[in-house]
């Protein structure tokens, strides 16, 4: 069950970024933090490392209004690293 700290860069388009925030908040795997201008810190908790990887690589960047995803930290379960 890896836990990743991520920064999502949101679009300058206010409507798109609001919709992106709503999509992220609706995702059970994601805890949304306090938005800093167009940067949104989130924590993703996924069932497997593969799922976390897919989330960061494909799913999040595919959300309309998400411009970029930076990975800040990833915590592995002991022994799974």
């Amino acid at each position, binding site marked *: *069950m890896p*836990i*990743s*700290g*991520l*920064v999502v*860069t*949101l679009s*300058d388009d206010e409507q798109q970024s609001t919709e992106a925030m709503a999509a992220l908040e609706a995702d059970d795997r994601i*805890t949304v*933090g*306090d*938005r*800093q*201008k*167009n*940067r*949104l*810190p*989130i*924590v993703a*908790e996924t069932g497997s*490392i*593969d799922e*976390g*990887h*897919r989330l*960061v*690589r494909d799913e999040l960047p595919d959300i309309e209004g998400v*411009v*970029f995803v*930076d*990975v*800040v*930290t*990833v*915590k*592995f379960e*002991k*022994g799974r*690293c």
Partner: protein
Amino acid sequence: MDRRDFLKVSAMAAATTAATRMAYGQEAGALDEQVADRAADTVEWNKAPCRFCGVGCTLQVGVDNGRVVAVSGDRKAEVNQGTACVKGYHAGSILYGADRLQQPLKREGDDFVEITWNEAIGIIADRIEEDPEKFAFYGSGQWTIPEGYAVQKFMRGGVRSNHLDPNARLCMASAVTGFLAVYGVDEPAGTYTDLDECDVLINWGNNPAEMHPVLFSRVVDRRAKGEEVEIIDMGLRRSRTTDHSQHFIRFNPHTDIAIALGIAHLLIENDTYDKDFVENHCNFRGNTDPLTLQGEEISFEKFKEEIQKYTPEHVEELSGVDADTIRMLGDRFGDPDLRITSLWCMGMNQHTRGTAVNSLVHGIHLLSGHFGRPGDSPTSLTGQPSACGTVREVGTLAHALPGGRVIANEEERGHIEEHWNVPEGRIPSEPGYHTVKMWENFCTPEDEGGDVNTIWVQVTNPGQSMPNLNNLFYPARELEEKFLIVSDVYPTATTKYADLVLPSAMWVEKNGVYGNSERRTQQWFKMVEPPGDAREDLWQVLAVARELYDRGFETMRDADGEFLFRIEDDDGNEVPVHNYNRFDEVNVDRALYEEYRPLTHYKQKNVAPYDVLVEKRGLRWPVVETEDGVWEETEFRFAEFDDPFVDEGAEFQFYHSPTGDDRALIWFHPQEPPAEEPDDDYPFWLSTGRVLEHWHTGTMTMRIPQLRRAMPQAYVEVHRKDARRLKISDGETVKLETRRGSMELPVWINGRGRVPEGTLFVPFFDERMMINDLTLSDHDPHSKQPDYKKCAARLQKIGRREGEG
């Protein structure tokens, strides 16, 4: 709070701090939440540069109970500012693949048998004693600086063989010759700061979104801050970089030279070149017959005459890029108010005319005056973490010596001999064999002139990464007299054919120093123990050196009869670090790095002291000590406002100018055809390269389950129309063939790169599908770097077989 909640809170704190810094360009407050959180955890954190690419991100590596359990981007690192890419944050996992090599192995028939380290060291010493001049060493930019320096001294000063070359020959040798031809000294003038400051970023055949992701995100992030940056992507195929670019310029393979010539033509034609800069700081250069890296002086008038025919229309004919787009590029370079950074890597370097295209791109920056101001820079990137530090600075190339010196120069050999306290003449005066020649000789029977009999490979995988493996690697297997020694961490395509395999320690299992693409030197300490009996590459070299010394091998002694690698403690007593149980008694890295450091002063490549690096996330050389004892780095070389070695009032000073007058050289090179082009028999262009998930030959990243699953195997990208014409469907296995070999692999229609019609692309990370059986060994005349980016190929449908879905 349970451990899980604690981890979530700590991850959110780190992400919030990073978001704040990215949004406001500074820390949110004085409290370092990440560190505070860490203090409460049992995990011990330390810095280390990422093990993978030449961007050189600093990571924080968390160790618990002797094992790496977490990796974070280092928030104090200027390069990556707290982030990492998908490879970087999985870097911890590379240590823990199930099949780590843990014991020295010796080939017996088709099998390997375990042997002791003493036996292994003895076997290598025997091979060297028998035929030192037929012994070669092959390494890479994955060596640390102390490792590379030790091998440099071991080979030139101890074995007395100059046959030392690295994988970097296949990776950035043309960038080196480009810098030498233009500035007389290697390595970029600018740094990553240019990416933060430029108005226009031009990627010349380069895909940083996948290959140098953190660096590219620095540029894209600027847009999110409301800054405008225009990204121009020039290449043979679309890539993830294209998705973020305003312009995609697809050019015919090998015609980047024509595009650069077209830009130079327009600068002169439109009278938009920078007359002051050219008049005060540049000379012009043309080719001689035979070609030399020095060329011959030509006048500005002659240059104008040569460039005359490269009109936008003529360049359109050559390159397939429409004349208006060439004009757009000419206008960008002709606008003095813009700041333009050019970025390149393998596309321009793996090129039979790599030196020419490198020189031309430098040339258009010089001609237009887009040089030396923050954001105005021609900058090459490297693929390996210490290609700059270990290969270019330490000089682990067949012709090179430390600090920018070359073997062919007697005086420069003398500097090194004096520094090593070895007799004059110890270093052989003939440069050694470059990579292609070294392996050609290894694959040629001794009685037919193949005069390399033993190669020791460390930190690289030539059995997969060399071009044209059918000529340059496999034939040696059949030759009794040839002996291959490989130090590595996992079984690879190279260890498979080795006679002796040595298990190595890797990354944070040892101390290290790396130098990244922006002249930044970074240090780290060992954090965990290597598995089983795996040992440091550095120790392996010192142990063989000592064995030879003990056997009376004369040249492992200095002029006073002392061991070449005498390592002392603080009281001046020798510490026998060649005994592995005493290796950690002193910091051997520090001793060797400090021995090497004064050699960097000769060409103003002054690296910082080891103990200063311990405290920093790297420093960019030249690093000089100010009067108040502060060690200051240099962001912009040759520019008076920042480079401490530029004379007062000079504004710009190319102080290693090939013409000895502080001027850089603007070269003319004509457009010429590639080594091989599609024809009726082989109608496709074939290009090779990398993917985001895997690094180099995939020996590390293919052992990270999540990266392997994300990109499990190689493929051939095919354009939809070509697939339709050949009646090939997505996923179908096809036969891919060139004049050098053939292979079968699955088709990915369009693929990630969306190749144009008539072009195929295959990544080289997959050892089960060796694309380098098919690639060309033709190489640039100066850099000797082969062209992996274009050759002629054909694709054949082979139909479905039993068992295929």
